[in-house]
């Protein structure tokens, strides 16, 4: 009996110690909102981010192991319009977008499509122009879950969940505050894929810092995206209009 009591006491003590250790770890982790606020400051601050109403980014993407390169034009406008155009060399072109109402994709290989379900949710989430400025409104649930090292940089890991269920874990440099990595399960019509992105080579464009290099790992392969230019000139609204073959799908 004594032995049982001793055993129980030890178990309770161990549990208590474990709980204390957990609390201590939680206390050492900064709140997610604080980390995100520091990130917004690090990339230019709210005032700077709020100055612009549109953005045109030109990037090059390569999959070196497969010998493939592509170029991309990304057009964005406040509050949530977006259009991308990719020239994929031998694979032809692929476009996609969101005009604030309809999300769509079109490629020379697969033809036009109107997005629904999880793909629509993701497109709506990523089309928000102020995504970086107001992360809390897009991801109402944010929690700091630990720290890790990415490409030699110590960073805070923050788990984020959007209103429509999109989940990701982003890691923010402990010193600079910049986002250095994201792990996310991405939805596509083909299925769910886990993707890890590592951001580096931050440079300033009109006072806003952006990672000019993103190394994406998925399905055992790597893709490197390199930003070539960023412009904040006004973009005509027609850029975001549905293409004729996507419109035809609405009939």
């Amino acid at each position, binding site marked *: 009996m004594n032995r049982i009591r001793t055993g129980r006491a030890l178990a309770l003590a161990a549990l208590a110690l474990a709980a204390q250790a957990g609390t201590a770890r939680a206390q050492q982790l900064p709140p997610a909102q604080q980390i995100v606020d520091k990130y917004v400051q690090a990339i230019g601050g709210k005032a700077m981010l709020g100055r612009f109403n549109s953005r045109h980014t030109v990037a090059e993407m390569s999959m070196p192991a497969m010998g493939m390169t592509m170029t991309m034009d990304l057009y964005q406008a406040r509050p949530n319009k977006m259009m991308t155009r990719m020239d994929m060399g031998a694979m032809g072109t692929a476009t996609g977008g969101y005009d604030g109402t309809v999300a769509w994709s079109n490629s020379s290989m697969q033809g036009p499509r109107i997005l629904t379900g999880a793909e629509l949710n993701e497109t709506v989430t990523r089309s928000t122009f102020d995504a970086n400025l107001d992360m809390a409104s897009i991801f109402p649930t944010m929690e700091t879950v630990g720290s890790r090292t990415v490409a030699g940089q110590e960073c805070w890991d923050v788990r984020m969940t959007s209103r429509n269920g999109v989940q990701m874990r982003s890691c923010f440099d402990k010193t600079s505050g910049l986002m250095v990595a994201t792990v996310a399960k991405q939805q596509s019509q083909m299925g769910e894929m886990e993707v890890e992105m590592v951001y580096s080579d931050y440079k300033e464009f009109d006072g806003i810092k952006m990672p000019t290099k*993103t190394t994406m790992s998925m399905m055992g392969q790597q893709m490197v995206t390199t930003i070539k230019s960023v412009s904040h000139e006004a973009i005509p609204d027609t850029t975001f209009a549905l293409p004729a073959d996507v419109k035809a799908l609405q009939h």
Partner: protein
Amino acid sequence: MTRSIRRTALAAAALALAAQAPLAAQTRPAAPRGTPITAALAAETFDTAWASIDRTLWDTAVANGPWRRAREELRPRAAQARTVAQLRVVIEEALKRLPYSHFDLIPGDVQQDIGAGEDRGGDAGMEVRLVGGRILVTHVDSGGPAAAAGVRPGWTVSAVGTRTAAQMLAAVGRIPGVGEPRKRQLFTWMAASAALRGAPGSTLRVRFLDGADRPVTRALALRAPAAMSEKFGNLPRLDVRLSTRRAALPGGGAAGVVRFNYWMPVVVAGLNAAVDSFRSLDGMVIDLRGNLGGAGILAPAFAGHFVDRADTLGVMRMRATTLNFVINPRRVDTRAQPVRPYAGPVAVLTDAMTASTSEFFAGGLRQLGRVRVFGEPTAGQALPAWAQKLPNGDVLMHAVADFTGPRGMRWEGEGVTPDVAAPPTRAALLAGRDPAMQAALEWIARERGRAGAR
């Protein structure tokens, strides 16, 4: 903005990865021997090849068993290789430990030769197959070098240059596992097709037996590669050919016939246009005989022209990811006008050189009850694969996933068995008949009759 770029990059990557070409084994010339390689580069090349497969091999039992042992046994030999040829032997030996198709090493110098089109880009404008123990001419392109020289389907190839058909068949006979009829057909086709290629503009002397078994010799002026010759990622430059025509049906009416040899993005516009132009016809024939595969993503994309509700052509299971080859019904034509997917009868023609993406297409649509398959059993080389450059410049083709059809059927090893067996015969070819095409057109005519009766 970071998020938008990431999502766009992801879409591109997914498309690229899914598009990476599962192609059946390619014809290749012998690599030059004796090129020296440093011990460090040899080891790095072996390690990269081994690790690429170890990272992506979906079958963890094979990855943890034979593949681990292959590294333990062969890595020391790779590090001792002093020539590129010695290293290739070691890597190829490792690849043989894997019980699947689509694991192949393409020598870098072959890539360059084929890519530059320096010595192998020209072709004779005819197709050959192993039929009844003979290498027969099964198809002659109208307007091509063979047609210009008067070569006819059904003739027997007895020698190409100084190489006799008997020598080719003997060489094929020495390949391990070639007793399996489809493999024998595939390797014979590879050997004969390679022999029938050369520098564009050069002349190839080919000896035939004509329809009466009389020896005849023809000089074929090899033509330049097709305009659609395409370089896709790390794959060799491919001579992509697409032809379309209308064929009369027995008893009246017509069917559209589409024939192409690779599933490459360059054929997409032509395929879409063909479907548009054949939309009002009584049926369509998709001739995939000799189509070795290509970009996997094109199979469900093309299937969308023939399926009126979203479905899947199959499932690609990788180590940690499962991707569905989703068929999106094509509801818009090439002029951006609303249309319904084609609802008439669709026949698919296959043979032992119908491989990979072609097997996804033929087998998947048949499982969905949308097409009827005519001809011969397919190659059974049906795994999605990537082409990855190695440190020494060679390219490693390696399967990265298992593939099952919409109802769970696998074609790897088994192939797609036609609904109607219609192999070519010499008599039929000499009589100007194509048994598989004939059977397909007769079926479409019967379906037309049934539709009319309804």
